[in-house]
C-alpha cells in the first residue's frame, strides 16, 4: 500500500480525508486507482490529453516526480505521495 496526502482543493472528492491509501505500481496507475475510488479525481489532476496539469506538483517521498520519471515514477509498498498545488515565492 502507498499513502497519498490529499490537498485541500481535492478533499471534497475524498469526503474530507487528508490522506488515503492506494495500491499502485506507478504514479499513472495511482491516479487511475484513485479515480476509481473517488470519481473525478483524474480530471482535476490531468488535462484532456491525460497529461498532468502544469500547476500540479506530485512528490514521492518528498522528491518532485519531475526529477524522477514523471508519471512513470515507480511506487513501492510504504511509499508516501504528496499532491501539492504550485505556490508562490518568498
Amino acid at each position, binding site marked *: 500500500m502507498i499513502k497519498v496526502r490529499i*490537498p485541500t482543493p481535492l478533499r471534497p472528492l475524498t469526503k474530507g480525508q487528508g490522506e488515503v491509501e492506494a495500491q499502485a505500481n506507478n504514479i499513472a496507475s495511482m491516479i487511475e486507482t484513485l479515480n476509481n475510488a473517488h470519481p473525478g479525481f483524474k480530471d482535476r489532476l490531468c488535462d484532456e490529453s491525460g497529461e498532468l496539469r502544469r500547476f500540479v506538483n506530485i512528490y514521492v517521498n518528498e522528491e518532485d516526480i519531475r526529477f524522477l520519471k514523471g508519471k512513470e515514477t515507480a511506487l513501492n509498498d510504504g511509499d508516501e505521495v504528496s499532491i501539492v498545488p504550485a505556490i508562490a515565492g518568498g
Partner: protein
Amino acid sequence: MMAKMKALVCRECGKEYPTKAIHVCEMCFGPLEVKYNYAEVKGIISRKKIEEGPRSMWRYADLLPVEGTNYLGPHAGLTPLVRAKNLGAHLGLDELYIKNDTVNHPTLSFKDRVVAVALTRARELGFETVACASTGNLANSVAAHAAAAGMRCYVFIPGDLEAAKVLGNLIYKPNVVEVEGNYDDVNRLCSEIAGEHGWAFVNINIRPYYAEGSKTLAFETVEQLGWRTPDQVVIPMASGSLLTKIWKGLHEMKAVGLINEVRTKINGAQAEGCSPISTAFKAGRDFFKPVKPKTIAKSLAIGNPADGYYALKATGESKGSMDMVTDDEVVEGIKLLAQTEGIFAETAGGVTIGVLQKLVKNGTIKKGDVTVAYITGNGLKTQEAVIDAVGRPVRIQPSLVAFEKTFKMGKNGGGDS
C-alpha cells in the same frame, strides 16, 4: 458604490471564486488572481488624487485588494527612484534609474509591500495567526509586521540562510522554523501545513492578495518618472511573481486611465545556479524544467517557480528578454552598484545589475532607452556573499605620522585636492 474587488478568478480556466482566503482553483489547480472592477476604479482614481495621497504605497489603494483603510504596514513603499548617472555612464545608458527598495520600511526589501497587503487582508478576513514559507526577506517582513500588529506568527525558512536573515526573524520573536532542505522543500511542507491549520499563510492561501502588492513597484515608477512608462525594466526573478505583477500593474494604469499606453519591455534576471525561467526563455520554450538551486543569490533560489509560465508570457508579450549571470558576476554587480551609486544591494540586486550589464552589451537595451533596474533587497542582509571581495580596512597607529606615511600625502592634503 460597487466593491472594487469583483472576485478571485482562476488564471488557467477562468472560474470565479469569492474573495476569501483561497488560492487554488478546485477544478484545474490553477492559481487564483484578484479581478477588479476597473470601470468603477476609473471613476474614482486620478493622478491628482494619487499625488495628494499618503506618502506610501497606499496612495494606490484603489488598485490594491483590501476593503478598508486600517492598514498594517502603513509606511511601506514610495521608495526612491534614483537617477543613476554614474552607473548609466559606466554602462553607456543615457537615462538609467534604480528603483531602490533596499530602503523599504520596515525590513529593507520589496517584501514589505506584499506583506503590508497580505496582513491587512488577512486581518480583514479575520485571521489571528500569520505564516509564510520564505527565502529570508519575506520571513523578516512577516515577522516584523506580525509583531507590530500583535498577531501570532510562524515563519518557515531553509536551513542554509544568511545569518542576518535568520537574526532578522528571531529579533521579532515569531516561531522560526528552520527546515532541513531548500526553499522548494520548505514550500511543499508549508503547502501541506497550510491544509491542516487555519492560518493566513501569506504566500499560500493569502497569495492572490499578497502578490498584488508588487504592482506598486510599477505604479510608483511611472509616477516618479512624471507619469511616463520606462522603455525597459530589469527585474530579478525567483518565483516570477514580481515580474508578472509589474507587467500587470503597468496595464492596470492604462485600464483606469492613468496612462495612455504601455511600451515597456520587461526583462527578467536570474542567477545561473538557479535559472529555470531564463533557461526556458533562451531555449524558446513556454514551459520550464524545475532545478535544484545552487547559487549565492539565495533570495532567488526557487527551483520550481510557480509563476514561471506567466513570467515567460509577460516577457514575450512585452518583447523583452531574459538572461542569467554567474555568482562571480553577482558579486561584481553588487560592487559596481555600490561604487557608482552608493547603494548596497543584496545578492538579488547583483543579479539584476549583472543582467542589466549583459543586456546593454548585447544590444537588447539601447543607449537612449529609459531604463529602470529593480533593486529589491538590502546588502547588509547578505554580507557573506561579498565579505571576501571587498578588501580590509587599512590599520594604523593613532598618530598623524602613521597616517601620513600610510597615505604618502604632501603638505596640502595630497591625493584628493
